[in-house]
Structure formats: C-alpha cells, structure tokens
C-alpha cells in the first residue's frame, strides 16, 4: 500500500473518516506517522478549546480571588485549591464516574428533557475537566500577576481620572496579562501535554478514535517495539510545543510593545515549572 493511499485512508481516522479498521499487521513507518498525526487532531482540539474557554474563567476567578468580598474570595480559593491540589488523572476518573451516574434518559427540567449521555463522551466530559483544570492553574498565575501590577501605574491612572471599569480595562488588565504571559505560556504547554491523558483515564475511545498517544501505544503494544511509535509522537509534540511558543511569543511582543527595548527581545522557552 502506497503512502499516499495510507494518508487518504487514515489522515482523518481519529475523527471517524476514512478506513474503519486500524492496520493489524505489517505496520510500516508511513502508517505510524499518519495515524499518530491523525490523533494529534484531538490533542489540538482539547488544547485550544480548553485554553480559550479556560482563559475567560481564569480571569474571572483571579479577580474573585483578589476581591475583598469573602463571598467571592473564598469560593475562588476553594476552586483553585481543589484543581491545583489534586492530580488531573484523578480528576478525569472522578468526573467520568460522576457523569456516568447521571440518568441515561436525561434530566427533566421544567418539563423539558435535557440529554446527558453526551457528557460521558470524551469530547465533552474530558474537555470540561481540562477547562476547569487550566482555569484554576491560570487563575493562580493571573492572580499573582494582578498582585504585582506596579503601584505607579495605578497612581498614573488615578491622576488621569480613570476609575472603575475604565481603569481596569485600560491599565490593570493589560499590565496583568503582560506580567503573567511568560508563566501562562508555560501553562499552555503543560495543558497541551496533559491532553495525552484523556484516553488513558476512563473516557472511552469510541470506535478507536483516539489521540496521538492512544495510537502510539496501540502500535507499541502490537509491535512490541516502543522505539518507533513513541519517538514519533514525541517528535509531533516537540513541533506542537515550538508552534505554541511562537504563537505566544507574538502575543507577548504585542503585550510588551509599549515598553522601551522590548521589541527586540525574543521570547525563549524557559520551563519554569509553574504547575
């Protein structure tokens, strides 16, 4: 079978298009590259959506944590403690077991039946866990940045007569984001790496539609040879990480563009292990 044929059969296999059966014998390099690459679609799906939705929740939680009102602060602290203090792997298991217990037929609310079975699927259930998880970690980062917004910036805003929402929107929030960005980049990389856990926790890979590591371990199990499939998935992730760093680097340059001498400074990936 030619590589082009393999590509058209398996390139979208992870989302249910193309050949139904996975290769069972005579595995060649092309098959492994294509299928593992196909699985990467799921990693990107989980990573991007969780990051995007989690970003907004994280902002809200960070503000709540910084609030003087204990009714806002305490729940925010609890949320962050719960999700940062426990392993993501356990959160996946727990969420799955909890979602499975929901009635199959759906829940009656005001006479309407709300379907619940989709929540036990990986695309929804695991995504929710990832969103909440990254929201908690990012909220901690944003809160730290919020605390270190320079006093002078706030005084300057006061001097210009800015208050309330306007001050937050134009001074506090951009500065917070600028200060948090390197650590947030780190968190984004960790999140993308964490997406490989989804199909190793309880969430089933429906019709063997899994992520890249799912297929890599499939190949490694079938061939008893870990020296091909795992380096391939590792290579894909290095590329993904580099791409992520460059995208976040662009945003970082934009956030810092008003600062003297910041334009030339390229952002390098220094893992600070924030998690």
């Amino acid at each position, binding site marked *: 079978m030619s590589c082009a044929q393999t590509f058209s059969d398996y390139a979208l296999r992870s989302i249910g298009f193309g050949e139904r059966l996975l290769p069972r*014998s005579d*595995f060649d390099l092309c098959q492994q590259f294509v299928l593992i690459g196909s699985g990467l679609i799921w990693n990107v799906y989980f990573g991007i959506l969780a990051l995007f939705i989690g970003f907004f929740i994280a902002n809200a939680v960070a503000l709540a944590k910084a609030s003087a009102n204990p009714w806002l602060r305490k729940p925010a602290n609890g949320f962050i*403690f*719960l999700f*940062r*203090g*426990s*392993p*993501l*792997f*356990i*959160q996946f*298991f*727990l969420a799955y*077991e*909890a979602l*499975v*217990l929901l009635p199959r037929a759906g829940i009656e609310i005001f006479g309407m039946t709300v379907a619940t079975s989709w929540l036990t699927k990986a695309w929804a259930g695991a995504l929710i866990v990832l969103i909440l998880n990254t929201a908690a970690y990012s909220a901690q980062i944003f809160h730290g940045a919020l605390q270190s917004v320079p006093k002078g910036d706030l005084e300057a805003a006061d001097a210009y007569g800015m208050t309330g929402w306007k001050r937050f929107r134009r001074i506090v929030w951009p500065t917070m984001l600028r200060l948090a960005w390197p650590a947030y980049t780190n968190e984004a990389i960790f999140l*993308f*790496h*964490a997406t*490989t*856990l989804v199909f*190793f926790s309880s969430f089933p890979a429906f019709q063997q539609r899994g992520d890249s*590591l799912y297929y*890599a*371990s499939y190949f*490694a199990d*079938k*061939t*008893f*040879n*870990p*020296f091909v499939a*795992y380096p391939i*998935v*590792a290579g894909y*992730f*290095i590329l*993904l*990480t*580099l791409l992520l760093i460059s995208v976040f680097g662009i945003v970082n340059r934009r956030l810092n563009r008003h600062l003297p001498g910041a334009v030339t400074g390229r952002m390098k*990936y220094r*893992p*600070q*292990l*924030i*998690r």
Partner: protein
Amino acid sequence: MFASCSDPSALEGFAWLMCYLTSGTHLLFYASFGTVLLLLAITAPIALLFGFGGAMASRSRIAPLRWLGKTYTAMVRGVPDIIFFLFVPIALDQGLEWLRHQALCDSSQPVWQGNDFVVCAAAKLPLSTSPEWVHQTYGFATAVVAFAVVFGAFAANVLYGAMQAVPRAQLETAEAYGMSPRQVTRRVLIPQMWSYAIPGLSNLWMILIKATPLLFLLGVEDIVYWARELGGTKTNAFTYPHPDWRLYYFLAILVFYLLMTWGSEKIIGRLTGRLSRGQATLAGEAMRKTGGA
C-alpha cells in the same frame, strides 16, 4: 478480619460497612497508599541525584559531557511526561532482556521476529518461574526508573538555574581566598544554591505528588487500580454486593491527594523560611530587619 464478619449477608448497616471496609482486598487497597508513599520516598532522592548530575554536567568544561547534560535537560521540555512513563519501562525491560539474551542464549537468533520481541526463557526478566512478588517488584522498579529519569531532567533544569543564580561575587570571593574550582563548588556554590533552588524544587515535589497516579498506566497495582477494582458493581455472587461505588473511592483518593499537597505546602513554607535566613535576598533581608527567626 473480625469474627463477626464471617457471614456478611446477615449483617446490616454500620456493622456491614465495618466488615466491608476491613475485608482482605480493602487492606490491599490501604496498603497501596503505602506504595504511592514508597514511590515518592524512593523517587525523590534518586531524581534529585539525577538532576544534580545533569546540572553539573551542563556546567562542565568538557564539551561532550556538557552536551550530554544539556540534551538531558532539554529532553523533557517539549515532550509530555506521560510518553516517557510509557516508553522508559518498556525500553528498559527490552534493553535488559536483550543484554541477557546476548549473554545467556543462542545469540544468533534475532530478538525481533516479525512483530514479536522474543528472547529465550533464560533471558526473561523476571524469570517466568519467579514468584509473584518478584514480578511486582520488578514492575515497580522500572516505574521508579521512569519517574527518576523524567523528574531528574526537571530537577536538572531547576538546579542548573539555581547554580547560575548564585551571585558571581560570592564565587569570586572564594577564588580570592585561594580555593580551587572544586573547593569553590563544594564549599560555596552548592551550599548557596539551595535557597535559589527551593522554590523550583518544591514546585517539582508538588508535580511529583500529582504524577503518582500514573503508576496505574505502568501496570502497578496502585490506588487507582484498587479503586476501580473495588468500586465496580458487585453482583450477589460476591460476598459484599453493592452498586457502582467507584465515585466514592475516587473521592477518597482525591481527598488523600489534597491532604498531601496541602501538608507539603505547609512544610515547604517553613523550609523556605529556614533557608532564607542570612541570605542576601528580599526574604532574607526582611528577616534580618525584623530580627526574628
């Protein structure tokens, strides 16, 4: 365990629950919490040692050694740790079996035959005749190596940064006193490095705690394994029939981990305070001014 538990079907309520929670399999479940703690206790020092080696190699004046150190520390940056956890145990196992195959068997036979990895019976690790606990210990040991390799690379990153952060002036002062490079490293660099390394290392400790449930993926009978095993629906064929209780088991595990991280945070807070004493850092200065601690 208790004499009253001999006929569980006759029991009700609290008595039933007490008997249920002290059954033989539950005792294994409780022991598996010990497995997690054991993994932490063994892995942390080994990973620190790996990290120390990696950091020292990255600073070495001998180029190949430096490249080795840099490659090792760079290894974990772009690649998810789970890939290493899946890869290292199998690779290690096959590597050892291959070596034993070369030594003990007719090595004209290829190891890879089609899609199978075949070594002769004498080269199997552990030997198929060995008792169950040897298999378990072997599985656990390969898991420890996998954790140590990954967290060693993380630790190497942290320690390398900490060594770079020690003020240059302190090292120069030591040189001015006539210390050799080796003495400077041993007497000044390493003792001074810790206060810079503690934030990174404590973070790493938290990550290590939260990585321990991945033992389940390596086939070790850990808390996740037992939670799934015990929590699943038990029909009347079992001594203690019950519906699907996995949720409660995982909740218990969640609480265990929350307590672990919460306790660790408290201890690390104290340790940071101790190590900041007398340091030329913000925390150290604050401590000097208040005259406390």
